[in-house]
């Protein structure tokens, strides 16, 4: 273990800004991608359901 304290860990030997920006950007991009997929999936399913329900109505009528 090379970190004496939490603040030492976050400082990253003076390179904290660069290191944490990199990791944070990666985490944000991945989270954003997963979230966007989640919403895309929900939208696709809603549309599909609407089309399907509309379709059954037509055949019933």
């Amino acid at each position, binding site marked *: 273990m090379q*970190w004496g304290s939490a603040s030492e860990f976050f400082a*990253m030997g003076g390179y904290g800004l660069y290191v944490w920006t*990199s990791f944070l950007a990666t985490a944000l*991009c*991945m989270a954003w991608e997963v979230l966007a*997929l989640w919403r895309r999936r929900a939208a696709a399913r809603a549309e599909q359901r609407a089309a399907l329900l509309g379709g059954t109505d037509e055949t019933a009528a």
Partner: protein
Amino acid sequence: MIWSKYSAPQAFYPLAGRLIPWFAAVAVILMVVGLYMGFFVAPTDFQQGESYRIIFVHVPAAWMSMFLYVVMAIWAGVGMGLNARLSFMMAQAIAPTGAMFTFLALLTGAMWGKPTWGAWWVWDARLTSELILLFQYAGVMLLRTSIDDVRRADRSSAVFALVGVVNVPIIYYSVQWWNTLHQGASVSMATGSKMAATMLMAMLIMTIAFWMYSIAVILARVRCVMVERESLPTWDEKPAAMPEAVEAR
């Protein structure tokens, strides 16, 4: 053969759905392990100090960006050769994730370059070819979105993806050549220090984690693409027509 059975979208859709949680779980576990090793086990680099820890996201992102482009081109080529819908859908699903990793590789590369070389950007062969790779991902995706006819969009972007596969290595070597000619930058990417085994281990674990993440995300996206394109609700394991089944997920 089992693969021919799953090459039909109807069979692949539920299979992908079952596989996603596994790949996602492995990705999360490996990321936790990799980050722990990267931050707490791997020693401080004696030349670069703590800034080198950026490679635990930078190198995996850069590798995935190139690997995913090749995989996308292979799917595109298979799609062209066998005229298989699923292959084109896979190629379509890979592009955004590949572009994201290319962007991340460039961003984290700049974050690493600033403290290491004193410049956010140098016209090094790797950086330049990564930038061109981003343009090619953009080209593949923009070509697809500008063509309304799905069949033509599939095949046109496949041709461009395949042409791009020839282009990237040529650019890599041409920029390397160009740099030796100019000798202006005089920065070599090769770090003189030998990597400690734990550093390498953490990097490899993060790479596998990113790989598993990519598979999970791409499978999820290809399922979306299938639903959007074909809207065949009977594919799903649960009948999507039932509102409660949709809400429950």
